[in-house]
């Protein structure tokens, strides 16, 4: 038999396969035909495989004769090696297309019909998304539900079982989401706040902000220990959990072309950097405008959190009184915002039932710098120095201060501050802070508090106390009991003095008073409640949730829950919530497939889960009711569903799982080696990958773009990371490159490169194995046991990692697998653990004493990167060469992609018969092999068993 590379068969292969598959189906039912197939196939194995893989020669430690002789051995790996042309090896004789088909067919047939679970539970992401869509809210509680993936690749894996812990957290999550959508106590009024004041920060951070015009100028703030410090806005506290619209009136200051980025965080306020409370990055505002403009972001906040900002630019603004950075004139907050009034959730759940809806209230929250001002109070002082008047301790900032007079004459003690409380409000104490900065002169060490009704006669002190000096965070002074007296005198009995002069100074002084809080709420209720209306509401909801219309009998248990609540308490909304909770915790909702009236409903549910991680919409439900979802109509639906924004959920989920971006944050790049890696970059790297895959799918581009392309979806920060000039602004957009740029395609994307790095630096083996299995489509056996991990050593004296890995070549047993692993890893060694291009390795330098962050890092350059290698006899110099080799077999790439998609959608890997069908669907020509088409064909097949 002549040597023929399988690739040459591609033209005729597809057609021949389709014909042959009909024979496949026939064989299933016919044992005699199967035996004939078996005999014919074994002849081929004899001719092409057994010479090397029998009991005597046993190449690669594989005895195929023995393996194929066993009835229940799993031949998946053999199948894969054969279909991707890994076997027979290049230099051996190859079966013809027909002969190969025989072999593959027989392998598939003997494993057909092996049992797998016929159901799975829905994943927590599908749960949260579905409930949000059903209720018409956006509340992300995925963090509250235990992760359920284990070591499996995909959430949908049928081997993952529903556990008590999961169900218990679904009960709790359902409660929270129902309460959020239909709150028992009603909705708080929508409020507006306007603020341009930030809370005090530790003195060392004060060089990064200063009052400027009407607001604050923020400059770059990478603190000296590598932490990004952010500044908290004062006078805004979210009263309830919900969505808040933040409008920043801001502009950029500076002569450079790049935008300045404002990172907006939510977190609990803390004073110094000793205890950064964890903060969430909410959004990024890209400032390019040099005139004030309003930038809006809508974010989710909880009570106790404050909004904070961090200004980032690649330029270093670390200087006092600088004039570069972000000028934020003010922050306006509106919230909690609702999509409409009454909220959409009521429409979704109660349909057209008449509701009793009070008018929506809007309040404007007045913000003043001090509580004292809020209660109408004022202050007088014993004396003051010009430029250090009493107002400076009432501006809510410890950067300015009041000081007793020392020029031209020294004011004599007693030094005091009298706070006036004209309205007689209840005051619980005082809040004191020293001036942050200076040499400590005048800072109060001890004090006495006196009360008076007339401001003249003071009597004995209410209390005395001591204060910390040199500590500029707020120090509360609690009175033994509340007072409503008109005058409160804060008398300085001792103050720190450097030269013995009698001085006193205060940075901030305010009263502690409970200010009246508006806690009105607006309850929406259903007019004329009745059991019939309740039944209707529950039936409608159940239809959407269960993706099926229900008979009265089927509905009964869920209706009963609601009815029992109605009969006990009487409130319609509460009864509805009880019924909805039963629906959302039911197996009909939590397990897939559920109980569907007909097959179309089942297909509708599957499609919605695959593309939207949610429940079907009305269009799908209508088609399902009419039983119109079939191999013919599904492609239109796929098209429609992909165009809907909700399909972003699938892109995100698929990238998370297939490319393991879920583990993106597991490794933190070393601050010594990668000092420029920051949270902004961390935020955008995965977004690039999602945006890219989304673009490929929406534009239906050829499959080769997974490996290589001349563009990516980038923004300013990502372009900086990749060394690409001319990208301004943080919004993601398509950027074309020159051919000399290695980017383009998944292999050279920062997110993929980071997630495949191990520990502090890269491991060619881990990366190579990952790329090989997940993108290139190779099938690798598990590594042998008892192999020790090799620690990377990049120093000049040490044996390089490459040299150590090349040892694999010396052993046949090792090289059999490693020839499909190492080369991929080597090609990517030009990319460090954050995905940046490198030609030399970096080695950490030790540091002495406390570690101080340095923007230049702590490393020495070490050996050169050698990214050459060879795959199947084809050599390459670097990743450019590797990409060309991979692109030469587009079918292998497509086949791998299809298998991953199938597994993502169905929760199990396709069995061998299914794989034959899937492979046959791949077009011959690379530019006809398009991603969206592949997705459609795969799903039509897996949902209906037919071809589209």
């Amino acid at each position: 038999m002549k040597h023929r590379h399988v690739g040459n068969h591609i033209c005729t292969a597809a057609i021949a396969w389709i014909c042959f598959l009909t024979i496949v189906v026939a064989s299933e039912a016919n044992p005699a035909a199967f035996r004939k197939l078996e005999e014919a196939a074994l002849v081929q194995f004899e001719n092409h495989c057994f010479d090397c893989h029998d009991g005597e020669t046993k190449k690669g430690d594989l005895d195929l004769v023995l393996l194929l002789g066993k009835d229940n051995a799993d031949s998946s790996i053999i199948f894969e090696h054969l279909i991707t042309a890994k076997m027979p090896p290049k230099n051996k004789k190859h079966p013809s297309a027909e002969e190969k088909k025989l072999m593959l067919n027989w392998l598939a047939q003997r494993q057909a019909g092996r049992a797998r679970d016929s159901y799975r539970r829905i994943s927590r992401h599908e749960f949260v998304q579905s409930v949000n869509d059903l209720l018409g809210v956006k509340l992300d509680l995925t963090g509250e539900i235990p992760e359920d993936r284990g070591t499996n690749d995909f959430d949908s894996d049928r081997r993952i079982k529903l556990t008590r812990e999961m169900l218990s957290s679904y009960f709790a999550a359902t409660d929270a989401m129902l309460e959020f959508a239909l709150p028992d106590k009603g909705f708080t009024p929508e409020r507006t706040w306007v603020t341009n004041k930030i809370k005090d920060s530790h003195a060392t951070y004060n060089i990064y902000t200063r009052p400027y015009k009407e607001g604050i100028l923020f400059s770059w703030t990478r603190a000296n220990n590598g932490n990004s410090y952010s500044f908290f806005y004062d006078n805004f506290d979210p009263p309830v959990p919900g969505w808040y619209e933040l409008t920043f009136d801001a502009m950029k200051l500076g002569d450079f072309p790049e935008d300045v980025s404002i990172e907006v965080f939510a977190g609990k306020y803390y004073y110094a950097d000793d205890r950064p409370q964890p903060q969430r990055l909410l959004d990024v505002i890209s400032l390019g405008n040099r005139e004030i403009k309003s930038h809006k972001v809508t974010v989710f906040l909880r009570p106790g959190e404050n909004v904070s900002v961090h200004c980032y630019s690649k330029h270093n603004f670390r200087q006092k009184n600088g004039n570069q950075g972000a000028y934020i004139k003010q922050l306006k907050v509106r919230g909690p915002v609702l999509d409409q009034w009454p909220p959409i959730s009521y429409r979704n759940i109660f349909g057209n039932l008449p509701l009793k809806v009070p008018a929506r209230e809007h309040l404007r929250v007045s913000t003043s710098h001090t509580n004292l001002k809020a209660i109408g109070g004022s202050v007088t002082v014993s004396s003051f120095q010009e430029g250090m008047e009493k107002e400076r301790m009432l501006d809510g900032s410890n950067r300015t201060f009041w000081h007793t007079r020392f020029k031209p004459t020294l004011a004599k003690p007693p030094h005091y501050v009298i706070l006036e409380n004209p309205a007689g409000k209840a005051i619980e104490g005082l809040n004191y802070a020293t001036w942050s900065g200076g040499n400590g002169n005048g800072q109060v060490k001890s004090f006495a508090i006196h009360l008076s009704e007339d401001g003249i006669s003071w009597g004995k002190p209410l209390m005395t106390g001591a204060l910390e000096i040199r500590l500029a965070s707020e120090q509360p002074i609690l009175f033994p009991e509340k007072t409503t007296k008109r005058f409160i005198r804060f008398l300085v009995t001792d103050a720190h003095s450097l030269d013995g002069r009698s001085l006193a100074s205060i940075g901030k002084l305010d009263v502690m008073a409970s200010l009246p809080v508006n806690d009105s709420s607006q309850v929406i209720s259903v007019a004329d409640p009745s059991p019939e209306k309740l039944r209707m509401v529950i039936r409608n909801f159940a239809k959407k949730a269960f993706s099926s219309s229900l008979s009265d009998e089927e509905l009964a248990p869920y209706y009963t829950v609601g009815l029992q609540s109605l009969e006990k308490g009487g409130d319609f909304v509460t009864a509805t919530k009880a019924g909805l909770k039963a629906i959302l915790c039911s197996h009909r909702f939590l397990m897939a497939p559920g109980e569907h009236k007909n097959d179309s409903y089942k297909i509708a549910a599957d499609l919605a889960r695959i593309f939207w991680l949610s429940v079907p919409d009305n269009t799908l439900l209508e088609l399902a009711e009419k039983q119109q979802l079939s191999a013919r109509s599904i492609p239109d639906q796929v098209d429609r569903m992909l165009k809907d924004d909700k399909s972003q959920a699938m892109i995100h989920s698929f990238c998370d799982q297939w490319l393991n971006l879920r583990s993106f944050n597991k490794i933190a790049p070393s601050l010594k080696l990668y000092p420029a890696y920051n949270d902004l970059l961390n935020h955008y790297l995965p977004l690039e990958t999602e945006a890219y895959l989304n673009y490929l799918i929406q534009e239906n581009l050829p499959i080769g773009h997974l490996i290589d392309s001349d563009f990516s979806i980038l923004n300013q920060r990502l372009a900086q990371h990749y060394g690409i000039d001319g990208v301004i602004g943080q919004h993601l957009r398509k950027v074309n490159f020159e051919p000399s740029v290695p980017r383009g395609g998944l292999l050279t994307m920062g997110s993929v490169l980071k997630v495949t790095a191990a520990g502090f630096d890269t491991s060619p083996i881990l990366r190579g194995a990952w790329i090989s299995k997940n993108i290139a489509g190779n099938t690798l056996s598990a590594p042998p046991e008892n192999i020790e991990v090799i620690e990377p050593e990049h120093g000049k004296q040490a044996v390089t990692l490459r040299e150590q890995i090349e040892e694999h070549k010396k052993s046949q047993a090792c090289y059999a697998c490693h020839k499909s692993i190492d080369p991929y890893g080597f090609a990517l060694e030009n990319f460090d653990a954050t995905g940046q291009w490198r030609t030399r390795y970096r080695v950490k330098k030790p540091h002495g004493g406390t570690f101080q962050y340095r923007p230049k890092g702590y490393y020495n350059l070490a050996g050169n990167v050698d990214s050459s290698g060879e795959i199947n006899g084809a050599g390459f110099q670097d990743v450019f060469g590797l990409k060309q080799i991979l692109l030469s077999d587009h079918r292998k790439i497509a086949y791998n992609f299809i298998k991953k998609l199938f597994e993502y959608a169905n929760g199990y890997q396709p069995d061998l018969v299914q794989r034959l069908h899937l492979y046959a669907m791949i077009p011959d020509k690379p530019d006809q092999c398009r991603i969206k088409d592949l997705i459609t064909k795969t799903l039509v097949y897996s949902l209906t068993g037919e071809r589209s």
Partner: protein
Amino acid sequence: MKDISRKDFLKFGAALPFALHSLGLKAATKKNPPPQRIIFICSCLGFYAPYFFPGKREDLASSLYLKGMQTPEKMTIFGNLFHPGMDTSNHDSEKSFLTGSPSPESPTFVNGMSLDQVMAREMGGGTRFPFLNFSIYDRGWGISWNDRGSAIPPMHEEEKIFEMLFGEEDLRTRKLQLQNDQNILNNLHRDLAHLRIKGANAGKLDSYQAVIKELEIQLNHEKFWLNAEKPKVEKSLSDDPEFAFSTKLNNLFELAKLAFRTDSTRVITLSMDWIDGAIKVPGATGGWHSLSHHGGQANKIDQLSKIEIDTLRHFNRFLFEMDQIKEGNGTLLDHTTVVMGSNFGDASNHTCNNLPIIVAGGGYRHQVHTVLEKPTPLCNLYLELLHKHNIDKERFGSSEKDMGLLKG
């Protein structure tokens, strides 16, 4: 799994080995051996090493700090334990004290699950509180991190902790919620029964039914605790305004002892967060943080040592009093593993090598002082503790293997 009667549910759920017995002050009965407890204490500013580690091997008297310990035969001090990956962490190393996750200073750090939480999962089912977390300061992270990488906020107000453990509570809303949930489960059972008659996918129904049965047991467990009376305990907290820091630490140890004695919980963490401002202890007043960065100056070290001696005084008293409480065949201390340590080996330099670690109690055969040959991951000891508590894990954090350091 066949149907179980409601009576059996209740029996199954309520017959937790120690639940009924623990309502009194004694946690053990003749039939059942006393349960194992564990407490982790982290001093976030460490201890001055020359005064902490015994100068002479095996001789506690050669340690300035530890020579006065009243239970020396039930303690082991370890030398040369550390967490890899902390060389640039500074104070952030606190986050990894009970997790061993590297690079906690990174802005994108995601922590692992802390040791106490892993243990609470297995050991926490039989008590009213699966675990308790205390701290001396309201701003700290604490040392307890859940499986989603979030810090579990500790409690620092002694009065509130006492109330929570032993005070009366209005639990009507929660009881109502439980009732509603039980109602839902009953109706779900109905639906399942109906589907079985119609011949729906038995495997799917079986697996779901098994889970809701487990959930019912959990609900009954909760209902049990809601209806059970809390133990009656005399309030023994002290109140000394002059030494507020010292008093708080004393009270927290006291609460820990009470919690263990009444079997209110079996897993506790106590985080001695560092305080930025000045504290006053007998013999010294000063900023704990600034003193801990003494830079080698003798007067600062002297002041610092007074603070550290004070904290260890409370530790000592805790061990001693636990050892006075008879339980089963030994004392409460014999059934409680006490791990006291720090994330810093040298707070002045912010280095995290040679961490000061003491393991006390637990009924092990203590060695007084064990110094490992080479720097060894502290997580090896943690892994061993998991095994000693019958929790079968192959690894924990940065562990390499279980070295059997605690014999017996």
